[in-house]
């Protein structure tokens, strides 16, 4: 199968690849997929004043899965939490020219975004307005 140039570019030069400490304040983590299925995505957002100031990913999966998550981190940055929830997998499919057999990669990326947002919201509710970083280890 031939990959689109955009997929190849994300594969060769992944954007925002890496990790935040999960415990860090304002960080939401989403891990979706399973090794048995051939893809696992970890997507993290860092939120300040309701705006995503940074995002990171790590992905085990095919080139399209890597590209989908790499692209997602680019799109997340600068968005508010609410805006981020509106990112649709179809937009990823369009941007990366994913063939039908790879649509599940974009679905997984959307799931990862939602999962990271939920994690962030849950943490924010549990420890509202913690000002210090004393809770992080």
């Amino acid at each position, binding site marked *: 199968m031939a990959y689109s140039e955009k997929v190849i570019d994300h594969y060769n030069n992944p954007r925002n*690849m890496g990790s935040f400490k999960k415990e860090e304040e304002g960080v939401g983590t989403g891990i979706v997929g399973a090794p048995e299925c051939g893809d696992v995505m970890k997507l993290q957002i860092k939120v300040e004043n309701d705006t995503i100031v940074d995002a990171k990913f790590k992905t085990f999966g095919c080139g399209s899965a890597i590209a989908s998550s790499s692209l997602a981190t680019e799109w997340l940055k600068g968005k508010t939490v609410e805006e981020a929830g509106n990112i649709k997998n179809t937009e990823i499919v369009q941007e990366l020219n994913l063939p039908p057999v790879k649509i599940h990669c974009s679905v997984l990326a959307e799931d990862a975004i939602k999962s990271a947002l939920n994690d962030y919201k849950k943490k924010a509710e549990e420890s509202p307005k913690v000002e210090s970083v004393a809770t992080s280890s």
Partner: protein
Amino acid sequence: MKLPIYLDNHSTTPCDPRVVEAMLPYFTEKFGNSASRNHSFGWASEEGVDTARKQIAKLIHADPKEIVFTSGATESDNLAIKGVLEMYREKGDHIITSSTEHRAVIDTTKALEKKGVKVTYLDVGKDGMVNPEDVRNAITEKTILISIMLANNEIGTINPIKEIGKIAKEKGILFHCDATQGVGKIPVDVQELGVDLMAFTSHKIYGPKGIGALYVRRKGPRVRLEPMIHGGGHERGMRSGTIPVPLVVGFGKACELCEQEMDAEAERLIKLRDRLEEGITKELEEVYLNGHRTERLPGNLNLSFAYVEGEALLMGVKEIALSSGSACTSATLEPSYVLRALGVGSDLAHSSIRFGLGRFNTAEEVEYTIDRMVKAVNHLRAMSPLYEMAKDGVDLSTVQWAAH
């Protein structure tokens, strides 16, 4: 060194230039129908076919009359299995085969199951080998055919065909062997192996595509087959249709070359393959060999690279032609059924790469491949959440994954 590099010789091989040279006259000057008995054009073609049949028979220690030409190994497997079943159905309706057979066998037996035939799919060991005693234990009064492959197309494991052949003979059951990956690479003697039918093909041994053969035993026992293709009674009535003379001539030449060069070539390929494995495993941790360590085809190396996905890995080494057991490379989105049958976990099956070395690969290509594989795996592991978790001491088997 030229790029891209071809390391997918289990899939197909390039024609040896000597094979092409032998074929050429049969496209233009010697174009006759080998079945035309009454003019010199026919005789010239018939002579080419006769020579090829002898070359092919010699490679497997058969009589030339026992070679039936087909379009390839898939047709040969179909003809052997369906042909025996239709011919001997009144004797029984049970077939024994294994779970790691090529799809040409498994899809054929699955099709027969729909028609009421009973099929036993034997499990294999974790090295991919069929246990002959399992074959013996699976035999019933209704068993009329045993079909076990010589060497596996993914992991290269070579089955104990001789032992299975003895059991088949002892029980008086016909024995078919799909030898597509073995013939031309390792010594094959149909007498010694005790096979009654054997499928193989030209394009895996540096001959042209579109021509294969089925060995059909003529003595002890004389095997009869119900043909699938009727019309003219060619090939002892088992496979009608005008013989594609240039392809047959090329197939014959390819077999002759394999016979002459097999020992030296096997030795060279084993060296290259072992160097490939050593070079990769010296630089990378958690790389696992799939298949049997020693009872394996000379050019085969199947490795799983933990924490990286096979298709992504192939993408990282685009200028090297390889194959993966990853789901993403298959139409079904299921990882390799062969690796699953060995008990390889789905995660490692997704991480597998098959290297298929062949006649035209060089030491320089192997060194290049080592370097590129190491870089690609490191690139992907840096990106892999699984690698990160494993490095942090997380036991991945205890994680609750959100499977999708």
